């Protein structure tokens, strides 16, 4: 059974550099890295010392609050470096890969008969638990919790993001196993959404509530779908899993391994030949970035899509959750009278001498310039036009800025993740850091109430 959801509010950001649907095998990286910033709110406790040998799938560290939540190494090799920051906070773990890879294999789990507790224990042990995230707070899910529903968005609308229909091809068995297993963890439904074209491998799976989504970005964001399907109330809990992570969970269940291989879209206007690469989590981005070639020297490499990704560099490493790497030109240059001359080559949600409304299908080459300076909130009504959730975005942002917990709760902070505010941040005339404001609001809420 499927239900159709049409999102009207939003803005599709068409950029140059979409990935061609061919997959090449990336060169093997010498060094792999786990970036601890990928796991928001997790305090790591190391299990192995610097210089130790680990197998692929062997635990590197665990969550300080939950000893059984393991975070594993994507490859076998030597842990050569533990990079630390201020107050000895661990930033990055680097592993020098062995020539011959050794894989740690657990016993597979029969998903049909396994209990919810067995599923949870298995995923924690294999190292796939961090792929399950929870809302409120947008953090790695608490294994002790029981969600009211699980949401999976198989509809990609983020600019230049990997096409889920393409990267999930042929992974039906793994995804089915994962969905069956996750379904046991909730008394509610497993909501899976796909685009309306009907090509999604997710559409044929069983034991799910299928939704067909259409409309501009942010229709593909899971937060938008939750809000339209079954919004989160105070005290409620939902889990979300990205479809490419579903595949890894499936492999963990079927084969008992942590398989870090995934298909990554290399995109962006700075990439000569944007296409897909088969590679592993933690791999050095340069292993495939330079295979496609870059158009200019001064580029911003982003782990993820251009709206929500993390800033990285060519010698950075593929993030734990990412299946998109974007490269766009840096915009660190001045623009003579850039604030009042007519603009044809940038996207705008207004028509104030900006002409992107004339060519809605045109693909743009945007750089990282903020196109203006940070200001107080002035203009109203702009965010609402691209924000389909039943929430007042500016009022919620202001509540987060003044740290008013009651107001944050009443205005719906439990329902959102920073990514839901990526589009309002994109169009923000006052250039406010929306995602950061929401993240800080969520963190405060988690600390005070969580």
């Amino acid at each position, binding site marked *: 059974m499927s239900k159709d959801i049409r999102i009207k509010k939003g803005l599709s950001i068409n*950029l140059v550099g979409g990935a061609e649907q061919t997959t090449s095998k990336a060169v093997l990286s010498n060094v792999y890295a786990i970036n601890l910033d990928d796991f928001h709110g997790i305090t790591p406790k190391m299990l192995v010392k610097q210089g130790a040998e680990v197998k692929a799938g062997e635990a590197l560290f665990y969550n300080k609050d939950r000893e059984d939540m393991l975070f594993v190494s994507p490859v076998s090799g030597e842990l050569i470096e533990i990079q630390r920051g201020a107050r000895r906070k661990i930033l990055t773990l680097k592993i020098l890969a062995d020539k011959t890879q050794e894989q740690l294999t657990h016993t597979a789990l029969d998903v049909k008969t396994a209990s919810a507790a067995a599923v949870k224990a298995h995923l924690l042990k294999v190292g796939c638990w961090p792929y399950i995230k929870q809302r409120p707070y947008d953090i790695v899910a*608490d294994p*002790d*919790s*029981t969600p009211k529903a699980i949401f999976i968005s198989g509809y990609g609308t983020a*600019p230049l993001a990997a096409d889920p229909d393409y990267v999930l091809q042929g992974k039906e068995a793994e995804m089915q196993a994962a969905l069956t297993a996750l379904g046991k963890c909730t008394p509610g439904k497993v909501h899976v959404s796909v685009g309306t074209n009907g090509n999604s491998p997710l559409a044929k799976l069983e034991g799910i509530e299928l939704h067909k989504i259409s409309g501009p970005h942010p229709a593909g964001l899971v937060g938008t779908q939750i809000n339209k399907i079954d*919004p989160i*109330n*105070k*005290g*409620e*809990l939902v889990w979300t899993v990205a479809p490419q992570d579903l595949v890894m969970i499936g492999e963990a269940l079927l084969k008992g391994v942590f398989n870090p291989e995934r298909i990554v879209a290399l995109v962006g206007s700075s990439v000569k030949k944007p296409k897909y690469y088969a590679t592993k989590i933690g791999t050095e981005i340069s292993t495939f970035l330079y295979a496609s070639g870059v158009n200019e020297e001064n580029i911003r490499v982003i782990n993820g899509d*251009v*709206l*929500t*990704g993390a800033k990285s560099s060519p010698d950075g490493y593929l993030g734990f959750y990412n299946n998109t790497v974007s490269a*766009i030109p840096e915009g660190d240059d*001045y*623009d*003579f*009278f850039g*604030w009042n001359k007519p*603009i044809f080559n940038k*996207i*705008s*949600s*207004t*028509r*104030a*001498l*900006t002409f992107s409304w004339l060519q809605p299908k045109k693909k743009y080459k945007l750089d*990282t*310039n*903020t*196109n*203006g*300076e*940070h*200001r*107080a909130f*002035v*203009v*109203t*009504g702009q965010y*609402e036009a691209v924000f389909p959730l039943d929430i*007042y975005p*500016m*009022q919620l942002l202001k509540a987060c800025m003044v740290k008013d917990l009651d107001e944050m709760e*009443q*205005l719906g902070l439990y329902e959102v993740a920073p990514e839901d*505010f990526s589009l309002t*941040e*994109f169009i923000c*005339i*006052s*250039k406010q*850091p*929306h*995602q*950061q404001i929401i993240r800080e609001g969520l963190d405060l809420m988690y600390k005070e109430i969580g």
Partner: protein
Amino acid sequence: MSLKNTLHNLKEKYKGKKMAPAFNALHTFLYMPNETTHSGSHVRAADDLKRTMNTVIMALIPVLFFGIFNTGYQHFAAIDAANNVAREFSLWGNFLTWDNFWLGAVQVVPIVIVSYGVGLAIEFLFAVIKGHEVEEGYLVTGMLVPLIVPVDTPLWMLAIAVAFGVVIGKEVFGGTGMNILNPALTIRAFLFFAYPTWMSGDKVWVHDAVNLAGTPDAISGETVLGYLAQNKDFSYSVSDMFFGFIPGSIGETSTLLILLGGLFLVFSKIASWRIMVSAVAGALVMAYIFNFAVDQEWISETSKFYGLMSLDGWKHLIVGGLAFGIVYMATDPVTGAQTNRGKWIYGFLIGFISIMIRAFNPAYPEGVFLAILLMNVFAPTIDHYVVRGNVKRRLKRLKNATIHPKSTDGKAEELKAETV
């Protein structure tokens, strides 16, 4: 070395210094800064606050030029009228003339200069003291102020009013984006209450009418609303009023150009069409209620409210400052209602109250600036109730919430039971 590099080096040199905001304000006026994204979205849309403000100024420029010509035209027309010289209007013959422009420019340009000069000086001062960047709010305010004052307003009065409006109306609240009252209207209100003889009456609306009063060359400086308030007849036709060939504040007379400016602002998505539409609706509702009262003969012809209440409802839109207020002042996003539903209510009440004050204010037959200031005060309340609606919806949903206990909660209880 190019200008760009020179300025960049200067910026680096002044970074962190007291005067940096002042320098940056001038620098960013010339060049859009080289700032790149640090957190969140790596790309940003093309619009910034400067561009937004610039769009509003573009919508005001035609009104300003019209005001300059009209200043001259009204002056000469009043002299002709005083000397009983018949005057046939002709756009090229006696409106868009060099004489009109020169006379108007000599009057209006100093007002613009004082408005910007004093206002921006205060903005720069506060930016330097408080160490934040100079925000663009005053770019629009500085253009609005000359357009809503009588042409003969002494410059020193204007300077004091601007200083009051910017400091008390805006900076004490934290500057652009934080103010409760529209700064331009705060300035106008200050002038009105501090110097009423210069701001109202039948002399101030035409250049030199005040100076010539009591002399043999005395000319009239009365507005249409002034005639109406005194139940007097006037000679202006509907087309005069619509195109703006009538006396009044410098920029408020031409309904046509204001309408075009409003359409431009709506089209460019800078100003809220909701506020404009609902304000016009509110004004018409009040005006037709008055017309109805007159039709029912509740108001006699001898009543001092008769003139304004009997004016055809739709004509209220083309006289006085109502159109200008609705298009350029009511739509100020900072002081107006911020929610879409709130904008409908806010706009409607502005129109409604404007006409009410217009008819019932014995001292000054115009109400739009008071109505907008009043609604500025109520806008947060309106928004509060609109947002509460959203909160209530959320609380209603909460009743059906399905909350599953944590699996550890159960265990903890069991443990407790055992230890007891």
